[in-house]
């Protein structure tokens, strides 16, 4: 297990969102967390990425308590891309991606050839090689999202947590981002955990699905194990048919309508 949540309790102030949750992320897999709005999936991802400190239980990175490791050391192993991040106006793509090198820099040694190489590689990986000097605010939504992913790639971490990386993107741009994730996993052997809303895309691009409802993990396993008609009813209060995706052979959800939760 590379990353593990052990009996964690998570919340904001007095409001508890997740209680007594266990989850393990294996090396070299793409795990996607699904669940209805407000079920605590982003909260869980933030805790896995030490952006939120659990009020109970612990998060382990390679078997060590993540909150006891120096945060800069964690940042060399684990990258997190929060939901809908914002950048100051006028920041160029290359400058944004270069900021991903922060964990590898000290205040007296700001820029090295390693940094240069990592930034170049991250830009070409995401197909932004020609757009390096463009300000972020002049890009399309898909390009901008790729630029942020590029920043997380330049960080050079084995583990990557992405919170809804496809939000606000049209279908073609969603596919573009998820294809990139697949390449990260396939070509570079990265371990990826993401939160997605689109169940069919989640099924197609993940090795493992984790379904959550009301702060609890309801099911975890391969997409075909998890995405069943009974689970959709239980987790999403959704009446749906599950058929085989004619392209990828993964489960495909065809909604019928909502229904009251039993």
């Amino acid at each position, binding site marked *: 297990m590379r990353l593990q949540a052990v009996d964690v309790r998570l919340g904001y102030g007095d409001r508890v969102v997740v209680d007594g949750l266990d989850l393990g992320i294996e090396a070299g897999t793409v795990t996607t967390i699904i669940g209805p709005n407000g079920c605590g999936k982003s909260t869980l991802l933030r805790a896995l990425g030490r952006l939120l400190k659990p009020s109970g239980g612990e998060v382990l990175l390679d078997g060590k308590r993540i909150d006891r490791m120096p*945060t800069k*050391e964690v*940042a060399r192993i684990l990258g997190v891309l929060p939901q809908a991040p*914002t950048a*100051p106006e006028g920041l*160029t793509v290359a*400058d944004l991606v270069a900021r*991903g090198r*922060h964990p590898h820099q000290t205040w007296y040694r700001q820029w090295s050839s390693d940094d240069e190489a990592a930034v170049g590689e991250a830009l070409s990986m995401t197909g932004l090689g020609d757009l390096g000097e463009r300000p972020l605010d002049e890009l399309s939504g898909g390009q901008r999202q790729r630029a942020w992913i590029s920043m997380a790639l330049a960080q050079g971490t084995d583990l990557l947590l992405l919170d809804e990386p496809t939000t606000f993107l049209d279908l073609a741009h969603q596919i573009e981002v998820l294809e990139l994730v697949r390449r990260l996993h396939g070509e570079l052997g990265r371990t990826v955990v993401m939160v997605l809303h689109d169940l069919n895309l989640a099924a197609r691009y993940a090795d493992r699905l984790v379904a959550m409802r009301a702060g609890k993990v309801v099911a975890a396993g391969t997409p075909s194990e998890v995405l069943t008609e009974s689970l959709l009813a239980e987790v999403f209060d959704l009446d749906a048919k599950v058929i085989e995706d004619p392209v990828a052979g993964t489960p495909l959800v065809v909604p019928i309508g909502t229904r009251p939760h039993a």
Partner: protein
Amino acid sequence: MSTALAPPRPPAPGGVRATYRRRLLVLAGLFAALMVAVVLSVSTGAKPVPLPEVWHAITAPTGTENDIIVRSLRIPRTAIGVLAGIALGVAGALMQGHTRNPLADPGLLGVTQGAAFAMVLSIMVIGVTSLYGYIWFGLAGALIASVGVFALGMVGGRGGPTPVTLALAGTAVSAFLYALTSSMVLMDEQAMDVFRFWQAGSIAARGGDVVWQVLPFIGAGLLLALINAPGLNTLSLGEDVARALGQNIAVTRAVGVAAVTLLSGASVAACGALSFVGLMVPHLARPLSGPDHRWLLPYSGLMGACALLLADVVGRVVARPGELEVGVVLALLGAPFFVALVRRRKPVRL
């Protein structure tokens, strides 16, 4: 927004290296501009001193009238103007960066009112009469007020103060101290006299000892600002991204607040309420530097010093044989300039 609709923009030739060279050139240009401002400040005034005589006074003084004017008045005045200008420019850029608020100025931390309160108190209660004396008190007041604001801003917050709690605490503490100061100066004529000149903001009649008095504080503040710049760059991507990149948010904020306190506390104590420099200058520097604080901070510092010295020179020339306080000139010239700037190009979103 699509790629096709984005305005075509010629790619910067040479990429990162060329950008670096261009930024160094701008830095050199700003430094040259500051040198011009220094020369103007040393040679201009109620009695103009020709440049050869300025040189004479600096290198081989023989006690002529011009020698005395240059050495005992103009040079300390210029030096304090350069120091305070750099300090306020850098403090303003830090403050706007940390709060991500383009209207933030260093006074937001309560330093201005803290300094005013302590100075007036020292005059009324202890009977301090020399400028040298109440600058110490002003400095102490600025530091204490800022620490108080930081502590108040932490109450109820998780993981250190946020920009919002800092701004709220700063506003409340400032208003409270201002009320106390006002009631004191209404009771004491001598304190009133000092206070009204301090409030206008001036760098006139500061001796060389004042320069040495504030130098260590401003030096320490500049060092902290330099250390703070990379962290501030990651913070400008949002707290979550900064944390993900391994930045310790609480430490970065504390270093930033310490730098702003030292810089603006020292200059406010020595020169009075000149916080307009801190508000305006970063907006002039940002179009040149872009959003990288490693360049924005030095640019703001040099431009702050230029603005302060040039405004002071104008103040010495327009009302001969009298003088206009530099704070008055800065506000009179700076405000319309600032409005024009903001109307012509929208201020950069932080």
